[in-house]
């Protein structure tokens, strides 16, 4: 009984102290530090192994790459640690390092570091970023010059070199800590503790489930002039929580707000809305076995013209745009205008397709919003729009992990999916071609449309910028007219910040460059 009393007393005591602690909890503030809330995807802070968004954001701040993009313009790579020249065939690229640049420990950046860093990624087959170096040979010319060569024309290579996975590491330190250029590399543990790069920040601490802390790199001698010397990147998986944290000034940047959430933000919050590089599209299978009536190209056309795109866009909110084609805006070859609803065309096409009112199943992953767009309302609206056009749709949602299986195996007749680039280059969209990876998922074989196959090949092998742009436009045009895909929405990327912060620029790979954040 006495024990009991003590127990209860302790409970009340704790409750009371909780309340007191709550009153005392005014988080210490420092104007030169900043907190970024984002839903983590973070597996490692070894840039060579990283392949996920939050990891890219971190790598981008800690390391530098040979080339870079300026602001949110992802059409043309600009010099980073190096400048480059290519031969006319677009097969040999010569990179010349800037003079005087140093790593965070003060040592100079040389061609050896570049060769080691790139070969390390090329050698680590277990790294998810390994494929970036497929078909690229690295050779040191002199201490400040490196030559990258490919078998076939590869105008996408400069864009590849902006990818933070191909960051330049301090080879001496990494080798010291187990780094090699093959599968025996054991430097990950070291790089999860310490950064070995030349970026404006160094790694202070990392916890893959909760937060990453970056501090200023005292030895940094690049172009960026950072305002915030301490950066905390926190894992806040709920966008609603990110919003409240930002409004309550517990954080200064929120990365994952949806269009609707941005619209209801309180005053004094800056919002930077840009179309992302994701494209949400409808897949209409061209294989009779898989899709039945959907395999008739007229059916795809009927769907294409039956949809009311602006009404769909309504669901995506700020920053989003109608997808004009499989290539999103800001990428080379993106089309100016998308498809417009034309119910007459839709009706005629539907008539021609032989559709007899049967119910068609629309599959989609329902636990996986893309750019703040949940697929369930989107699917419901598509269902309602197609119903108006005389097409009966039955919704069949499934979790992402389950749904992706049938998507990859090409067994979906009619589904909603999305595509984002692995690196900032339009070559990322060639898999939509007939006979290519995504094309095949829609049962679209090379034989079915040799024209498109040729267009894709022309874009792939172009050796000049202009030639390349035209080829991509033609490819996108062809897909818009007769491809088995109906691009719907390019969701917006909404980065919201405290009012005194500026310099937010969205990038499709690293989301934003932390070093560019400025205090007004």
């Amino acid at each position, binding site marked *: 009984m006495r024990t009991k009393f003590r127990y209860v007393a302790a409970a009340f005591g704790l409750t009371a102290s909780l309340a007191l602690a709550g009153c005392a909890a005014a988080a210490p503030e420092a104007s030169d530090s900043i907190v970024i809330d984002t839903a983590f995807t973070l597996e490692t802070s070894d840039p060579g192994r990283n392949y996920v968004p939050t990891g890219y954001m971190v790598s981008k701040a800690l390391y530098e790459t040979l080339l870079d993009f300026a602001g949110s313009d992802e059409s043309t790579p600009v010099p980073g640690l190096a400048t480059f020249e290519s031969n006319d065939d677009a097969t040999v690229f010569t990179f010349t390092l800037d003079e005087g640049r140093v790593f965070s420990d003060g040592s100079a950046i040389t061609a050896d570091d570049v060769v080691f860093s790139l070969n390390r990624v090329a050698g680590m087959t277990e790294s998810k970023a390994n494929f970036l170096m497929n078909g690229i040979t690295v050779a040191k010319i002199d201490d400040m010059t490196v030559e990258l060569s490919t078998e076939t024309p590869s105008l996408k290579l400069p864009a590849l070199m902006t990818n933070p996975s191909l960051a330049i590491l301090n080879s001496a330190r990494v080798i010291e800590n187990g780094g090699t250029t093959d599968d025996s590399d054991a430097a990950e543990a070291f790089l999860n503790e310490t950064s070995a790069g030349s970026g404006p920040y160094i790694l202070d601490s990392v916890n893959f489930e909760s937060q990453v802390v970056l501090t200023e790199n005292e030895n940094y001698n690049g172009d960026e002039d950072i305002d915030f010397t301490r950066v905390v990147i926190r894992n806040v998986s709920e966008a609603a929580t990110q919003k409240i944290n930002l409004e309550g000034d517990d954080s200064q940047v929120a990365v994952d707000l949806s269009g609707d959430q941005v619209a209801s933000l309180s005053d004094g919050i800056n919002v930077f809305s840009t179309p992302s590089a994701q494209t949400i599209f409808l897949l209409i299978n061209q294989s009779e076995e898989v899709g039945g009536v959907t395999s008739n190209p007229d059916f795809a056309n009927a769907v294409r013209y039956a949809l009311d795109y602006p009404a769909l866009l309504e669901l995506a909110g700020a920053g989003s745009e109608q997808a004009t084609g499989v290539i999103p805006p800001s990428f080379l070859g993106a089309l100016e205008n998308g498809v417009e609803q034309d119910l007459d065309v839709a009706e005629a096409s539907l008539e021609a397709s032989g559709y007899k009112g049967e119910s068609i199943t629309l599959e989609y992953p*329902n636990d996986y919003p893309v750019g703040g767009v949940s697929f369930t309302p989107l699917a419901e609206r598509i269902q*309602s729009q197609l119903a108006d056009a005389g097409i009966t749709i039955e919704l069949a949602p499934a979790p*992402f992990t389950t749904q992706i299986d049938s998507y990859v195996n090409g067994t979906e007749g009619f589904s909603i999916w999305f595509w984002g680039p*692995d690196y900032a280059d339009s070559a990322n969209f060639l898999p939509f071609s007939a006979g290519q990876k995504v094309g095949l998922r829609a049962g679209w074989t090379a034989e079915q449309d040799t024209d498109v196959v040729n267009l894709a090949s022309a874009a792939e092998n172009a050796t000049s910028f202009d030639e390349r742009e035209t080829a991509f436009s033609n490819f996108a045009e062809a897909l818009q007219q007769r491809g088995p895909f109906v691009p719907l929405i390019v969701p917006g990327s909404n980065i919201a910040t405290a009012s005194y912060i500026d310099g937010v620029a969205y990038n499709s790979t690293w989301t934003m460059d932390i070093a560019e954040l400025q205090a007004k």
Partner: protein
Amino acid sequence: MRTRWLKIPAAWITPLGVIGAVIALAWVGIAFTARAWVPFDPLSQDLPRLQAPGIDTLMGTDALGRDIFSRLMTGASVTIPLALMLVLMSLAVGTLIGAIAGYFGKWVDELLMRLTDLVMAFPTVILAMVVAAALGPSLFNAVIAAFVVSWPQYARMTRSIVLGLRTQNYVMAGRLMGFSPFKTLRVDIAPNVVGPILVLASLDVGTAILLLSGLSFLGSVLNRQRPSGVR
């Protein structure tokens, strides 16, 4: 008088109990009639999106421009029967297992009770997730997931009641008169289990609705962390 256990015990007739019964009945009524009187077609997407509650739209509109009040009322006709179904399923399976375990005892009891222990030792979230992942997070699948975790409580309760009943004098008296095991279960045990189990079940309907909404919530509300690499 024949079905004595259906008579409402006087102890239940409290202000709270009456209010509860009225609310429960009202919801059942709504569930069956909502389609006839809700102000808007719950499926129509014609209203402006994300309206605040107002005169026209009592609870506002959702992201697709549908009237939330109409959807809520018609939604009851889906959720309430499903919750009832869940409770009935758990009740049927749990009671059967518990009665067998309690009545036959010995290794049968040991085996069945370890089985319920296994289910109870199993993390509910994981089970629900796995079922949802395997079958898709529809409300019906939530029922299946919830069923898997909710039958053991009935099994446990039934078992403890049956264990208690098994040694009751009237059960012994029946056996002394040559009742078959089936007759003992039917005459002496089952009617005395029904009462408490129904009370548990009636309390459980509310929990079931909450559990179902929680489970179907998980898929729709939470932003799952993206699997690596898919961007």
